[in-house]
């Protein structure tokens, strides 16, 4: 039972406390490049999810047989294989979306978040924890991509998942779907995220102080 709680914690930490984008600020290339619409962000998130969970599983299963000296190359081989599988599957099943994401699918290989999880976590923990960690991290990455994609699509196109929101009178903020809009949105989201974390910390400090006072009194 106790192990189940920590496995759950490994998963949950990636979603919020150690969110790969908002806290670790990793994987910025796909983050900024493909988040100009919500659907692109979601598909990129799903692709990354599959690659990260798959490679974490394999790396953790084979960690005993992976020599330390060539571990990075082996991780890259594993990750690249999964990415190729995703690439061809998308091309066969969702050709329209593959057209939009095109160049960025192969770039998942170079997503430092994925390699980082292999090196920092999967290669040191058992399969169960590694997979839980990967699910959490990929989930957190997906949430972040979606948040960015949704904001940029709503402001930059005036639509959400391609559905028009504001009617013809809305003048889209074209800059939001261009690269500067990605940086602007990411900056504001990071600010928002840190503000919440800070507020929460202050609140917890206050509660602790109040408790100390009442214990003393």
């Amino acid at each position: 039972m106790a192990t189940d709680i920590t496995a759950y914690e490994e998963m949950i930490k990636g979603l919020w406390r150690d969110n790969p984008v908002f806290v670790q600020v990793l994987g910025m290339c796909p983050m900024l490049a493909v988040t100009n619409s919500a659907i692109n962000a979601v598909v990129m998130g799903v692709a990354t999810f599959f690659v990260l969970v798959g490679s974490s599983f394999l790396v953790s299963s084979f960690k005993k047989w992976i020599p330390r000296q060539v571990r990075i190359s082996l991780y890259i081989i594993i990750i690249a294989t999964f990415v190729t599988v995703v690439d061809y599957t998308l091309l066969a099943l969702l050709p329209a979306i593959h057209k939009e994401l095109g160049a960025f699918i192969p770039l998942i290989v170079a997503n430092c978040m994925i390699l980082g999880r292999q090196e920092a976590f999967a290669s040191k923990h058992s399969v169960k924890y590694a997979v839980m960690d990967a699910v959490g991290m990929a989930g957190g990455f997906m949430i972040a991509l979606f948040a960015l994609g949704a904001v940029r699509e709503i402001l930059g196109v005036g639509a959400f998942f391609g559905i028009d929101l504001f009617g013809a009178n809305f003048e889209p903020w074209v800059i939001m779907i261009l690269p500067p809009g990605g940086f602007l949105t990411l900056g504001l989201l990071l600010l928002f995220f840190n503000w919440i974390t800070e507020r929460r910390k202050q609140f917890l400090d206050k509660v602790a102080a109040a408790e100390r006072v009442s214990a003393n009194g």
Partner: protein
Amino acid sequence: MNNVLTQEPQKTEEPGSRRLIASMAIAGFISGIIIIAIYLLTFDTIKENKARELREAVFKVLPDVADMKKLHFTENKLVVVNADGMDDEMIFAGYDKQGKFIGYAIQGKGPGFQDTIHVLFGFLVSNSNITGMEILDSRETPGLGDKIFKDMDFVGEFINLPMMTDIKAVKKGTKSKDNEIDAITGATISSKAVVKIINKAFNKWSPRISKGQQ
């Protein structure tokens, strides 16, 4: 003593280079097999998707088309081919339900704002009109350059466009002649690229087509 202790665990774990090479080779081999498998598994679907996309595009740019034939330009004449896929020396002839020839769907490629734009347009030989335009492939900026296929006003300008002389892209709202096209605001380069690609492809193919007619 201390020194020895810190060095020892590393020394015992040092595998020979043969083992390193072997593990890389095995991983590479397995990865290769998986990639070949997924390539073979998806190959047919991908090919079908591409062929269907092309058919749909030809049917879209030529009105009332019920059947199409692929024509390849080899040794100075147009030859009907049945091969899959396509290359730059290929155009498509459209026929209506009675099997009567309607017109050609001509493809052209050229540099856009980001990457190569691949255009397909319908051409009626009888009145020398362009009957429609479709972007087969492009990497233009989402939200700006991609309006060359998302902005229906722009796409609509290529329907029944007389192709006597080269067409020209002009600033939006300043169109005054038949051979002028209103460019898209914010996507001038992409609009001009499309026009340029069509001109180039037309000038390349019109002598070939007239030769094929004789």
